Each structure stands twice: as C-alpha cells, then as structure tokens.
C-alpha cells in the first residue's frame, strides 16, 4: 500500500486524535504515534512536596510533565522557605534518578554482601515470620530499631510499632533532636517545648560555634533571617558575631569572627559574663526579678550557696579565660559591650555535635548570657516553639508479651547510670551488643541511618552487626550498613512517597507540611510506613489493632483532622490573604476557611503546609516554667535529678562521678565549665575539628554529581573530602596545596588532599563530614561519649599530619 506523505500524516493524526480522547493524553498506539506523543506538549503539573535533604523541612514545588519529574523549585507559599531553596534541594532530582538505586527488595544469598532479588510478599513473609517467632519466644525486647534524622508521623509510627510489638529499643541515631528542648534550656527555664530564636527581628546575633548559614536546622530559614538582619527597610543593619574555631562561610559573613580553641566556648561565655557583670552592663531589672541563683543565697537548711555572679567574678577572670580560649581580652570586652548595648540581641548556643566533654554546662553558660542581658520575653530574643494541635491517636494496645518486653532495660543504656539524662545513646550500642549486655540482639532494623558510615564507633559497629542474626535495612541505596543486611526492603525517595514534616525549633511558629507523591515510583520500592503497616497487620493481635491503618495516607489523614478542628492557624495562602487573616485574628476573629475536612485536606495537599503564625508565645510567663517561675542560674531541677541519683546510687555512683566528682558541690548546678590545664601534646600535636558542609545532604548524597562537584566555596575542592590546614602548619610539614596528606589519630589514619586555609588557628585541622565513599573522618574520631546527649564527641580528637 503506497502511502503518500499527506495520506500518512492524516492517518497518523486520526489515530493520535482517537488516542487523545481515549485517555486524556496520547497513549502509545503503535510506532507511528510515538512521534506524535513526543510532539504533543506534555501535561505540566506542579506538585508541592517536602525536601528531606536536611532537617530544615523546606517546601518544594516539583514540576512534573506527564508524571515524570522535570524540575524542582521552592514552594512560594511555604512559610519556612517562601519559594527559595538551598543548593541541596536540587540534588533531589539526581537522588530520584540515581542509577545505583535498589530496584526492589533483596534477600541475602550466602554470606553477607551477596544478594538475590525477591518479591515484596516473600520479603514481608520472612520479616513477619521472624518477628512473630521472636514474640512467641518472649524475646520481643531483643528487636532493635535504629532510626536516623526524621520526624513527624514516621517517628510516631515506629514508636507505636515498638510499643505494640514490645521492644524498648527504638533508638534514634542522630546528633540533633529538634523536637525536644535542649537540656540546658530545660534545666534553666523548665521548658518542655524547644526554645526558638527570633533571628528575623534580632539586632545582634552572637553565635557560639553554630554555623547558621551552613547547617543547623534549616539554612534556608536562617539565610532569610540573616538577609533581613543585614538589609531590611524597617531597621538598621544588624551585627553578627561568630565564635568558631574555623572561619566557616558563616564566620566570613559575620562582622566579627572570633577564633577559639575547640571545646572552650563555655569558658568564653563565662568570660563575657564576667565582663558584663564587672562593668554593670547586665539587665538589672530582669536579673533581680526574674532570675534565681544570681547572687549568693542561703537554702532552707541554712547552707550558703555560691551565686552565679560570685562564680563568674571568682573563677573566670578575663586573663584566665583569654589564656584558655585563645581569644584576646580586647575581643572579649568588645563582645560583652556590644552584647549589652545592642538590643534586642540573641545568643545562640545550640548545635548538633557536642561542644566538648562538659557539654551541658557549656550550653548552660552560653544560655545564661541571654538571661544576663534580658533577651528572654522580648521580641527579637527567645521564643517558645508552639504545639502542633494534631489529633491524638488512640493509645497503642499492649498485650502481655509487649508489657513484659517494654519492662526490660534498653540495650543502649539510655536513662540509666551516667546516661540518666539521655534519651538515646547510640554511641554505646556497638560495645553493649558485642558484650551482649544486657541481652543479645536478635533482630535489627535500620531506617534512614547508615551507622557503618556516620557513626563515630563504626568499626565496633561492624563487628557488632556480624553477631546479629537478622538485619533488615530500608535504605534505597546499597550503602555500607545495607551491605551487611539480611533483608533489604528499599524505601521510596521523598519525591515518590506520602510524606509529612512537623517543623519545630525555628522562628517559633508551628508548621505542618504535607506532601503527596510527586511522581509514581520508578522502581519496585515501597514506602517504609506502608511496609511496616503491612507487617503489623500480618503479625495480628494487639500489634495489628494499634496500627489499624491500611496505608500511611490514612494515618496522616486521621492525624491532620486535629489541625482542621484546632480553631486556629491556616493552610498557607498568598501573602496578601495571610496578612488579612492576621489582622482579623488580632481582633479575635478566626474565620474557618473550609466547611468540611475534605476541602481542608485537598487544600493542604494543593498548597503544601498548614501553619499558625499568630500567638507565638514570647511572654516571660511562657518562657520561664521552672518551679520558681524564674530563670535559674542555679538549676533546682538538675539538683533534684542529681539528688535522686545520689539517693539511689550514692556519691560514688556512675552518674554523680561522671557529672563532676571532686568538684565543689554547687558547681554541678551552676553553668561552671572547668578550665582544663593545657594537656601534653607530644605525639599528636594538632586538634581535629569536623564540620558539616552546606552542600552535603543527610544520608551522604553519594551520587548527586552537582553537589559533589562544587561542595564548598571557601576552598577549591571537588568530588572528594579534604583537610584544611593553616598555611604555616602546612609549610612546617612541607605540604603544598592539593598534596595528599596522611591524617593520623590514636585510632586510625586516612589520606586526604590538603587545602591550605588561613581561616583557622594554626594547631587545628578541619575535615568536613563529606559522606559518600571517600575516606571518612569517623575513622579518626576517638569513641568518647557525650554523657548528656549520648552521641560521640566530634571535636576532641588529637591528630598529626604528614605528607603521603
């Protein structure tokens, strides 16, 4: 049959036309229609989603063409990032289309590391069989679940599952718990909700080692606040001081960079307090009426107690502080005077990794500056994070086995002996599993964490995992820990799954982000929440009853109903509408936007987030919830905890001796940081400081080429980690730029390219936590544990360097 060109085209359009009507867009009708489909403009939908590359919780707008993701931009309505993004967000495109992603569930075939693909039903059968077998043998407590850096309903789901199943061992392996208040704030202000910092209105920001613009809880939000601090129509240019051993990009953008010996931030804070008090610059009114323990005082039993003022004036003279911290006296005075004179100010002393050995007292010392200059209860100072009015879920049903399992002690020893104050101590896991103390672990679930890469004691962890008979990993990639697993049930990436994010700890407003899958899953992966709901149903009994939902979507829908009935807050809308609603709310009218819950749910999916901008508790009453209703320099709450522990274990008990045996009694409860004598540095002269890069996503981001190629701006590096060395130290060791260098600590050694960077003290070298395959600074870090937060100490290791 001889086709003329015109004839061919007509036939083509006819079939294509039919196809279009058939399914709303040209379906694949034989080879000829292939071209037609390519010519036809694809259907473009923008789907709101949430970025999971860091705990910042920014809202995304994912551009999909015929269901395929073609671009990522910021969600303009989302209150946290208002349409802007950080560099990592765009790595999401490459995360989704990463060729190394696991295509489907796999089971171990033969020894560890070799796998065979299996179907989902068979995989679920294996898990359910193993779990129910352990339950029947009353060994439910020997199941451990390691959770990484996530929050929201996924955390709720895992908590419920562990309670219903009967294991106390749901352990969060992360150095930053954003939904819990920092210990220092809890003990000094008695708050239960996390404390936020009103960066947007602050005139002075003094940050102790918190790289605001690079890491810590949402660099996008901080960048916006920083931008308004610098240039905004309402007020003059703000002042920003960064105390950091490294001249990080945050320190570069600060007005003053104060180089400091790592771990001595607390001592510097007390030195500043000394200067403020001696020059009488402190907020007299606030200190006298709203604080306790400033002056010396006598307790009920007539015993004299040291006051904060006396402590600071006695022990923390400027010369001693300057010697310990390496900060010139002139700088300390300048900081003190500007902190006291520029109002409103905010002092930030809260970050992921610990400051040093005595982390609690360091943070108490830094936080006490806020009280000294009266930042508490004023706009531009501290705020309390509001509560999200989510609908309370029915209590998880616990049968006999569950109750008995939950009664068992935790394997990571959190909440006992010297770790009384920690919620999770992942640092101790390896040795306790190896010693089978208190009991052997029979099953291990790894969700969104890769301990064999980012856990300081990763070698011990590898040994420990060898002894665990059944390991399940939910990682979408075959990373180090997943390679040791017995069963892999790969999770979707965040662009392919139902997702929620309850952002706390930022500018005080509460924000609940919700996201539907932006694209249909590319491989046979499954949302871990759905997997666990399936396992729960298969286990039956009380576990199935306490996790009744068919799909994760239903759990979200049930929880979000609370927001609809809360009677406050809005689904984010355009700026104009929002300000109108705020005006109305100030006069006390809160107009519900939606009649029924369905409309509310659809709008929430359409716009991406719900938030309540008004009524952010700033008042002193909301911020000071201690027994005395005052800011306690001398923390009575801490004293209670210590007294209880002493009553139980006596003064020689592990908790008391770890907290500060041999110290003066009162110093335990005051923000007193001991000035350690300069230790001998013969074999390892340099100190190692690790830091997080803005361009490295959580989970290592091993295969996101854009981010790997241009990881940093302050040094010239690409595709691999590096070690920053001061030019003088490098010259002494005969090292030139880009030379590869051995960095050696007592524990191990790694080889990295050297970058000469003058933004550091000469005796400190800095290695970024780069993630991915390359050499890992965790091989160097000694396994000292921070007894207050259960995570490893990342900046106390001593190293030496030599040319490779």
């Amino acid at each position, binding site marked *: 049959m001889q086709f003329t060109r015109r004839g061919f085209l007509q036939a083509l359009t006819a079939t294509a036309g039919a196809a279009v009507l058939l399914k709303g867009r040209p379906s694949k009708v034989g080879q000829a229609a292939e071209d037609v489909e390519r010519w036809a403009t694809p259907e473009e939908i923008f789907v709101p989603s949430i970025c999971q590359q860091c705990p910042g919780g920014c809202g995304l707008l994912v551009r999909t063409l015929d269901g395929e*993701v073609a671009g990522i931009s910021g969600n303009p309505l989302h209150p946290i990032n208002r349409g802007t*993004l950080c560099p990592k967000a*765009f790595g999401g495109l490459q995360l989704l289309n990463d060729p190394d992603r696991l295509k489907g569930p796999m089971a171990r075939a033969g020894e560890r590391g070799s796998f065979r693909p299996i179907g989902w039903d068979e995989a679920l059968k294996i898990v359910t069989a193993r779990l129910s077998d352990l339950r029947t043998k009353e060994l439910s407590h020997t199941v451990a679940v390691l959770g990484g850096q996530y929050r929201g309903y996924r955390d709720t789901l895992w908590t419920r599952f562990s309670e219903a199943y009967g294991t106390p061992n749901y352990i969060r392996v992360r150095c930053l718990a954003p939904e819990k208040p920092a210990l220092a704030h809890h003990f000094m202000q008695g708050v239960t909700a996390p404390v936020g910092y009103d960066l947007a209105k602050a005139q002075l920001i003094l940050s102790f080692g918190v790289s605001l613009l690079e890491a810590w809880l949402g660099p996008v939000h901080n960048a*916006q606040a920083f931008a308004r601090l610098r*240039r905004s129509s309402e007020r003059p240019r703000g002042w920003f001081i960064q105390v950091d051993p490294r001249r990080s990009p945050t320190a570069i953008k600060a007005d003053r960079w104060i180089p400091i010996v790592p771990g001595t931030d607390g001592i510097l804070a007390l030195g500043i307090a000394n200067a403020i008090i001696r020059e009488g610059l402190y907020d007299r009114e606030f200190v006298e009426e709203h604080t306790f323990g400033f002056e010396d005082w006598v307790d009920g039993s007539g015993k004299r107690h040291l006051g904060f003022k006396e402590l600071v004036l006695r022990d923390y003279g400027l010369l001693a502080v300057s010697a310990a911290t390496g900060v010139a006296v002139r700088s300390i005075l300048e900081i003190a005077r500007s902190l006291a004179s520029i109002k409103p100010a905010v002092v930030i002393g809260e970050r992921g990794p610990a400051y040093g050995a005595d982390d609690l007292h360091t943070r108490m010392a830094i936080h006490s500056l806020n009280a000294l200059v009266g930042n508490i209860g004023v706009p531009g100072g501290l705020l309390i994070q509001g509560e999200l009015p989510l609908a309370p879920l029915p209590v998880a049903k616990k049968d006999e086995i569950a109750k008995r399992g939950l009664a068992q002690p935790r394997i990571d020893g959190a909440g006992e002996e010297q770790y009384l104050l920690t919620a999770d101590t992942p640092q101790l896991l390896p040795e306790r599993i190896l010693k089978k103390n208190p009991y052997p672990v029979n099953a291990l679930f790894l969700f969104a964490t890769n301990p064999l890469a980012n856990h300081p004691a990763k070698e011990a962890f590898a040994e420990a995992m060898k002894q665990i008979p059944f390991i399940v990993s939910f990682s979408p990639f075959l990373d180090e820990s997943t390679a040791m697993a017995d069963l892999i049930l790969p999770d979707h990436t965040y662009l392919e799954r139902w997702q929620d994010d309850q952002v706390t700890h930022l500018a005080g407003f509460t924000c609940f982000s919700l996201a539907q899958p932006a694209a249909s899953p590319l491989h046979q992966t499954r949302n871990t929440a759905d997997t666990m709901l399936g396992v729960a149903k298969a286990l039956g009994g009380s576990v199935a009853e306490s996790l009744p939902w068919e799909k994760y979507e239903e759990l979200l829908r049930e929880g979000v109903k609370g927001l609809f009935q809360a009677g406050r807050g809005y689904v984010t809308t355009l700026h104009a509408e929002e300000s109108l609603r705020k005006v109305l709310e100030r006069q006390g009218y809160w107009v519900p936007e939606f009649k029924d819950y369905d409309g509310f749910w659809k709008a929430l999916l359409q716009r991406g987030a719900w938030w309540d901008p008004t009524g952010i508790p700033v008042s002193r009453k909301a911020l000071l919830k201690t027994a005395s209703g005052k800011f306690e320099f001398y923390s009575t709450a801490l004293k209670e905890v210590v007294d209880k522990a002493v009553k139980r274990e006596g003064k020689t008990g592990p908790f008391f001796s770890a907290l500060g045996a041999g110290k003066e009694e009162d110093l335990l409860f005051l923000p007193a940081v001991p000035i350690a004598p300069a230790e001998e540095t013969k074999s390892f002269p340099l100190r190692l400081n690790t830091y997080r890069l803005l361009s490295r996503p959580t989970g290592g981001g091993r295969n996101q080429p854009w981010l790997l190629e241009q990881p940093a*701006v*302050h040094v010239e590096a*690409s595709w691999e980690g590096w070690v920053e060395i001061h030019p003088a130290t490098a010259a002494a060791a005969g090292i030139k730029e880009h030379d590869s260098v051995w960095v050696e600590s007592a524990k191990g050694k790694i080889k990295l390219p050297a970058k000469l960077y003058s933004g550091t003290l000469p005796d400190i070298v800095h290695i970024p936590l780069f993630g991915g395959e390359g050499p890992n600074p965790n091989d160097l870090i000694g396994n000292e544990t921070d007894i207050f937060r259960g995570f490893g100490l990342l900046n106390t290791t001593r190293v030496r360097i030599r040319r490779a």
Partner: protein
Amino acid sequence: MALWGMVIDLDRCTGCQACVMACKAENNVPAVGAKEAKRGRIISWMQVLTETDEEHHGEKTRFIPRPCLQCDDPPCTKVCPVYATYRNPDGIVAQIYARCIGCRFCMAACPYNAKYFNWHTYQTEKPGQNPDVSVRPKGVVEKCTFCHHRLQKARERALAEKRDFDPNDYVTACAQACPAQAIVFGDLSDPTSAVSKLAASPRAFKLLEELGTKPKVIYLSEGEGRG
C-alpha cells in the same frame, strides 16, 4: 524594549551556591565528573567566586556570585568569527550551539570568564532534565542566558491568556532560588522596578566597570559596621 538586568547584594549573599545548583537544574548543565573536574573543566554558568584579600591582617573574604553579566557592549560577540554569540534584541548575550565552531576566541576575550567549553560530550538526554533547554554537544561554548527560555514561555503564556506581557512573570532560576533574596532580577529600563531602585543605591558597583563592557549585573557592596 525591556532591558533585563540583575542586582546581587553581596551583603546578603551567604555564598551558599543555591543559585549555582538552581541554574544547573534549570539549564541541564552537566556535572563533568571527578576526572574532568580535577582537570579544571567544571561547567558552572553561575559560579560563586571567592575573593580573598591576603594582604589585610584579618584578611577579608568576599563571595561574588558571577553569572554572565549580559554586557551591553560585549567583548565576546565582537570576536566571534561565525556570529554564534550575539546580543539579541532582549539584551541577552545568546549562544547559537548549532553554529559555534569551538574556536574559543570568545572565552579568551571575556574578562569575566563567564563562558564554558564542552571539552567532551558531558551531557546526554537523561531523565529528570528540563525539556525547555537543549542539551549542548561536545566542542561548543555555553554560557548563562538569563534563563532566556523562561522569558519566551512567559511571553507565550501572556499571549495564550490574551494579556500583555508582565515583566514579573519572568524571573531567572537563580533569583527564584536565592534564600537570602540577594539576587533581584527585573527590567532595568523600568524605573519603578525593584532592580532599578536597587541599582541606584549608593552601594551599587559593577564588576570590572573600567573595561567599558557595560555589564547589566550590578553588585551592591557589603556594608560596614552598623546602620
């Protein structure tokens, strides 16, 4: 005719490189790989340059995000032997990838190093790319185009909705993504636009202004102290 320009406030910019990654995602700019990057062949239309002033004792460092400055008197279009780069009616220095013979004269002529060369075939059709921007073959020069395809799409949308073109519909990927809102994009010829107001600020300066290339990206210098 609209004179598209950009103001970058160096006081606000935090050197986070969101603009760099947004540009790469929007324009399918390839990651050249470890070996090629080590050889110094990273293609990055918007690149954050770090200027350190070593002599000063507390040496000052400054982050300069540098797109193509879309000069009004571009030294690169003068030297191109085949009319493969030219200043189009929108005032944007465009690049014709199909005509470029890869002589790299424009790269040598540009004082801002805003032109990048495809030394190998770095980018092929891959999932997750932006279909509005063509992928560049090996052997041609490529550069920032102020996301010119977004201007065309905005114009088509205005035509489709039968209204005249509103300049605010057209914003570059980097300006949209910048968390510190340090990059402001708009029409310099319209005095009421944010860009024109900012360009008139006393802090405004142009990069290598003495060369007379009349760049359309205006930088605002960092402030000192308070106020």
